[in-house]
């Protein structure tokens, strides 16, 4: 079996703020259009043009799991995700309070907590994001794009330094 350690990789610089991720999330999970039911949310600073999609990080040491008084929250190792057992959940919202990312949500319509479940391995936010602001990648590959960017900066600096040296008398 191939390793399933995938996570959502969010590149906020690419996000155009369209919120299609919120729409497809609610349609996929609940069959309705309703941003309030979305597991992913685009936080905006509209007067600066900054948009940042926020979703569950599926923490290794998940605070929501630790705080849950009924052990309703558990780790699904197969898909590397943190899940809520709705049969055990008593709706106390302790998990909502402790989540450092605000990614555990409370649905005022059904009075239940809900969170990202990777759409069982085919995250719809990733499927529909044309600019690839949200991607579904192996956890150990998240840092590689940053490593490459940093490396590019170093090579550019080196080239500039060499060019400067060659101009010296």
């Amino acid at each position: 079996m191939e390793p399933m350690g995938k996570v959502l990789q969010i590149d906020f610089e690419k996000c155009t703020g369209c919120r299609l991720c919120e729409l497809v999330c609610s349609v996929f999970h609940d069959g309705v259009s309703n941003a309030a039911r979305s597991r992913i949310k685009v936080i905006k600073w509209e007067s600066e043009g900054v948009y940042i999609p926020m979703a569950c990080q599926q923490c290794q040491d998940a605070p929501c799991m630790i705080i849950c008084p009924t052990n309703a929250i558990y780790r699904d190792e197969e898909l590397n995700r943190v899940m809520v057992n709705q049969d055990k959940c008593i709706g106390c919202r302790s998990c909502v309070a402790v989540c450092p990312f605000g990614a555990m949500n409370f649905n005022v319509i059904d009075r239940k907590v809900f969170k990202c479940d990777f759409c069982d391995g085919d995250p719809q936010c990733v499927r529909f994001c044309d600019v690839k602001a949200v991607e579904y990648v192996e956890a150990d590959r998240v840092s590689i794009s940053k490593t490459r960017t940093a490396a590019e900066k170093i090579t550019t600096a080196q080239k500039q330094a060499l060019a400067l040296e060659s101009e010296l008398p």
Partner: protein
Amino acid sequence: MALNRKIAYIDLSTGKIEVRPIPLEVRKKFLGGRGLDAYLLYNHTEKGCDPLGPDNTLMVSGGILSATLASASARFHMMAKSPLGGLLGSANGGGFFAPELAWAGFHHLVIKGKASEPVYLWIHNGHIEIRDATHIWGKTVPDTQWAIREELGDEDIKSLVIGPAGENLVRFANVMTGIKNSGGRTGMGAVMGSKNLKAIAARGTMDIKIAHPKEALDFNKRFIEQITTAKVNQTQGTLGTPFIWGATNSWGGIRTRNFQYNQMLYCDEIEPEAIDDNCAETIGPYHMAGCFGCQVHCRAQYKIPSGPYAGRYDEGPEYTSQGAFCGEPDVASLEHLLAGNHLVDQWGLDNLETGSLISWAMELYELGILTDKETDGLDLRFGNGDAMLEMIRRICFREGWLGNVLADGGIIASEKIGKNSFDYLIQVKGVSNLHSDERATPALALNIATASRGSDHLRSRPAIDLYHLPEEVLRKIYSSPVPYDGPLSSEHTEYIGKPWQVFWQENCYMGVDCLGICKYHTTFLGATLPNFEDWSKVLYYNTGLELSPRDIWDVAVRANMVERLFNLREGLTREDLKKGDMLNHRYFDEPTRRGAPDVVGTVIDREKFKKMIDEFYEYKGLDQNGVPKPETLKRLGLDKEPSHLL
């Protein structure tokens, strides 16, 4: 589900609010959005009402597909009698307001009367409240929105607002949401201002049930692929609408110095690539923003690099701003383009109308029809960018003799300025033309002459006519969903076949406006984009409503006819220069002076233009005076209007 979204009747004079369902039979006849707004306007306004009086009725709506999986189902629509031309007032915009209105439980608002003090509407999960707005009156467009969020304690509230221009009853004040999304044309902001209505705020968490979720998701994915693989949208998603500038200007389609030239010289500085280079502090690799659910993301984000507004964030400048603040006044300056765009976004003015009227005044000033007395000493010659910016301010705040006069729009201004000033006013039905010059493109000339809300490029323009597409490609597009075997020409300077193209586009655009989808997702700038066939499916998957492509076409024809009926009731006559399907004499009398070999030296041929109108009327089922024949109204089920079903 989408079909259970409500209509609310709001009387600002009495404070009475009534909420009703929208019957299915009405949906099948008009769908929603602009189509249903047209029906409501015809049924809820009295002939000859004062556009800025309490009797004018203002419609606010989202399309039937608002907030559903229809790629860019973000459009809101507004309609009322226009204070600008006295005929149909209609404005359409993107952003995030329409989906929020739908989540709050509503598709349509019908607003009558006038509040005694400034108010705003607060629409929240099925409830509507009229709230005091005296403390936000006077605020700019963005500040108004932030103030409402702060007052109600919810940063997810989306508002449609007016700025100072709407409060000051500038007859081409727009209605805005977000940083720059505007319902720009025909002065809907002035109508809101006349009702003391500063804003409409919406917030909702009500489910919209999707009829067939899996199919809707899959179809939306295919829709997006069709839309994003079109080269035109890829370019638009990188550079925004200014990408059109270079090509149009090079063949000679840009109105310059009001209407003296059809090409602007030495204007590399305002090309989109130059805008990118100079606005160094753009955001992210895309520096583009999208409206709700849209993968075209055509809104360029920028920070003004220099000048009095340095460091300010804004979106755009659109192609329209390039024409309004550069081409028409002949100001080849990036700084003035960005500043002009920023001012109209802050104050809530229609950029197109503002720039057009200032350019008209510049021509009158150079001709001596306007003097330093009327301009209060302002040197209003072409090319004076600072004077242009100052005039924007004077118009918005109705300052100085000319500022106050221009704020009333071209027709009223021409009566106050007198002499032969009207001869130089480039308008149809009292509404200024886009900066495009249509003397070499008969199809586009027919489009602006017959557009229902006055001169306009978003009502029936066959923009793909400029691409010289092979005849068989044109035939494939233009003979569905109704058969057409008449002539078609790939030549944009031709008159043959153009009336059918304009008629087809008129129905295509009405279709998207009823559904609430953006025009960049249909046969407007790209020939491969979705239309009737796809809408039939997307409508079914999302709402469960079964309408064939032909049914949607019929809705569009019917809704366009209702707009026609409204205009006729308010005095439209075929060749009237102020209220007719007629162009300024300069289109027929002054040959173009610049441009490509097949463009330079052309005028619109008066006789051929007349024949095009005849043919266009024939397709619409109108007699030669432009009045619908009795059998046309019967066929469309409009023989008993106003029928007051809603």
